[in-house]
């Protein structure tokens, strides 16, 4: 195993996040390539385990990078992997947010917000479909997804209970 070069890791992930349009899953293969293949900082199995563990935690789905950083070099590693995530969001998004507030009626802003909204909505539908197909193995899973949609749209139950029921069903091997 190589010794972990935190500054190189920091720069690499900073570059990745600036090109990560469409969310954390788009750059997962690049992180795998860097950490597992190019620098052999952990095995592919360890990488997959940490990814799974992080997905089970609440929060945005980029937390796997924090856990990988922590695994490599403790708190310093966690910071090395987490701070680059925040950089594009706190620079570009803040700039866009600022322009949006300052010039709410600018034609280009309107065209982007109105014109691109259908694409963003289509992508939300695509994400839901991809997730559903990745995790469901038989009709019981699809049924649970369908029941969730109906309950969320028709009742005011707190969906955290549904998530807990799903987790329980998973542990018991029902879905």
């Amino acid at each position, binding site marked *: 195993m190589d010794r972990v070069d935190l500054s190189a890791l920091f720069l690499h992930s900073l570059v990745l996040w600036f090109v990560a349009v469409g969310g954390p899953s788009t750059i997962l293969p690049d992180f795998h390539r860097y950490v597992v293949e190019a620098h052999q900082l952990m095995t592919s199995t360890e990488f997959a385990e940490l990814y799974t563990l992080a997905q089970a935690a609440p929060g945005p789905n980029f937390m796997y990078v924090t856990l990988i950083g922590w695994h490599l070099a403790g708190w310093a590693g966690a910071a090395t992997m987490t701070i680059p995530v925040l950089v594009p969001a706190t620079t570009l998004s803040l700039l866009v947010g600022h322009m949006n507030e300052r010039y709410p009626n600018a034609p280009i802003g*309107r065209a982007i917000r109105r014109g691109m909204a259908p694409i963003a909505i289509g992508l939300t539908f695509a994400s839901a479909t991809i997730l559903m197909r990745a995790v469901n193995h038989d009709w019981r899973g699809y049924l649970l997804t369908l029941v969730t949609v109906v309950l969320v749209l028709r009742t005011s139950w707190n969906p955290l209970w549904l998530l807990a029921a799903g987790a329980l069903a998973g542990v018991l091997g029902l879905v």
Partner: protein
Amino acid sequence: MEQTELHETRVTPYQLFLTFSWITLSGFGGIMFWARRRLVERERWLTEQQFVELLTLGQLLPGPPGLNLTVMVGYRFGGWTGAAAAVGGFVGWPCLVVIGMGILYQHYGALAQVQRALAGMSIVAAGLLFATFVKVAKVLPRRSRPWLFVMLAFVGVGVLRWPLFWVVGALAPWALFAAWKEKV
């Protein structure tokens, strides 16, 4: 959209911190559902239309869409400090939780159970995302063109599994051109 009414709503950084802490700590298997539920339905800081607009910008900008949304909402209602407070709540807790889970995992293992629980939870999370889609899609005008773009984006990414970057890149000029012409 009427943007002027927004600036009457002033939210303290502490409220933003609490709200985004709640969103992130509820967000098993994705946070968009919870962000919409809290910001649109509970707090009523954003209309459905405004949420869709920020969601759109968040997806187009590099970096995690949820984090981009958090920054823009924090900034809109609380300026710089609001954005910092929102991000602190949104990222801080999950960092602690995920590292805590890493420590527990080193001591106890049990990845098989975690995997099964995660699988069950993700099945529900997919349903939450579909429900989010149904709700946000209501803001689209009942004309064929916006829905054509919804379908093309969905088929490109969700069915054909082409890279999102190229699908969005190919559709964006047409979508922008159409929206630009429509306004005039």
